[in-house]
């Protein structure tokens, strides 16, 4: 939410879920339909840029909030090594003519 609002968009419907399922929980087609309908309502009724709404849904628990991009003593060294490997990979990609860097995906 902070990233989208920092960027600024015309309309934004926020799902307060772990990243990956913005349209609703997997296999919950009722929730998925309700979320898209709320989004369509926002498209229709918003009167100004940066119009933000939240869906009424919550994830099954809140453990994910603290877990995202967690850094502690258990993974500090692993992250440092991962960065070194990634910089080596980027150098190899660049040498091979790849113009676009892969994203860091191992959150």
């Amino acid at each position, binding site marked *: 939410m902070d990233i989208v609002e920092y960027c600024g968009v015309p309309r934004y419907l926020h799902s307060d879920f772990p990243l*990956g*399922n*913005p349209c609703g929980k997997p*296999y919950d*087609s009722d929730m998925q*339909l309700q979320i898209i309908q709320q989004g369509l309502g926002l498209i229709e009724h918003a009167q100004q840029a940066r119009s933000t709404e939240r869906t009424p849904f919550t994830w099954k628990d809140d453990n994910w909030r603290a877990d995202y991009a967690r850094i502690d003593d258990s993974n500090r060294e692993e992250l440092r090594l991962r960065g070194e490997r990634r910089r080596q990979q980027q150098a190899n990609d660049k040498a091979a003519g790849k113009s676009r860097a892969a994203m860091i995906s191992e959150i």
Partner: protein
Amino acid sequence: MDQYDVPYMERTRNFYRAQGYSKDYQWAHYDDVPFTVLQKPLSKARIAVITTAMPDTEPGRAQRQVYASPSDPIPSVMYTDELSWHKTMTHTEDVASFLPLQQLRQCTQLNLIGDLTQRFYSIPTEYSQRNTIEKDAPEILALCQQDEVDVAILVPL
């Protein structure tokens, strides 16, 4: 219960620093944001979907770039491995949880929208704002114009 909005910018900054990156990522930021009220009723509007997931094809897995893929049949899988979603907490095996084609098809049947474009578009997430602004966004705009889109819904993972 411990509900709060996850501070993604701060977490991401610290996560990259922990991997030895000294230069913080600069997120896009605009003081002026474009806005247009809907020009026709939604029940007559053509909707397009833009996702940051790539097609699960050989080119889609090999090269992250703009793609236009058929909306029908709805793909049963999309390539999301290279994106930064929360892999320890959820999964992307149900395409409708991040690519709302099925539910928009239902909305068409309910006459809530006019129709859905015959193609949906993939746009790569990028560290380079220049790539997005100068290359990918104009390609997406051209696709929207070719398909006579009234409303574009961007659903990033």
